[in-house]
């Protein structure tokens, strides 16, 4: 039973063309995170939501935006993808800070 679902698993976009990645959860967790993981690197936190309270990391580019319309869904919008934004994007959730549940990730390719 999938708990954190990410769609699509693979996304190809063109340089500069806006793209939206989706994350949904069936755990009813109040905290949701978006991470960016480039090849052979550690996941890097972009931002997180505590309920509807949005928390941006200081070094997250303005090109990255997020929306959380309800507890279950969270979206990552990349307004003008560049070649350097090609990466795996991971969504995670938690409600007790003892364990973060990760989705399978969306691999973004920018042509």
């Amino acid at each position, binding site marked *: 039973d999938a708990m954190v679902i990410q769609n699509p698993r693979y996304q190809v976009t063109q340089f500069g063309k806006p793209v939206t990645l989706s994350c949904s959860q069936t755990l009813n967790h109040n*905290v949701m995170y978006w991470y960016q993981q480039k090849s052979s690197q550690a996941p890097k936190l972009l931002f997180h939501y505590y309920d509807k309270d949005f928390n941006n990391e200081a070094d997250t580019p303005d090109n990255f935006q997020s929306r959380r319309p309800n507890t279950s869904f969270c979206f990552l919008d990349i307004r003008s993808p560049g070649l350097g934004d090609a990466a795996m994007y991971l969504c995670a959730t938690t409600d007790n800070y003892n364990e*973060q549940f990760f989705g399978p990730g969306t691999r973004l390719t920018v042509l």
Partner: protein
Amino acid sequence: SQELEQSPQSLIVQEGKNLTINCTSSKTLYGLYWYKQKYGEGLIFLMMLQKGGEEKSHEKITAKLDEKKQQSSLHITASQPSHAGIYLCGAAVNAGGTSYGKLTFGQGTILTVHP
């Protein structure tokens, strides 16, 4: 900011061998998490350690947090091909407040197990 250094960066072992992966922090660890990642997939939670000297085991994997809480080790006994993957340590950013469980990760250790 807190930094985590993992060693080794990659490890190749023969099936049945024991192995250890280390994670060293630049600051005191308030919570240390071990995750496993298969290539191209999400992270799977293995264990969390909080107290100095704490040790936890799950099947053939044991993790320890040293007394001074700045280093953790992950030990796999009698490795199997199913243990292959990338092992990541993650540390809670700070002890509480508005951190909301934010984690910073090490760069990962790539484990290959040959049958």
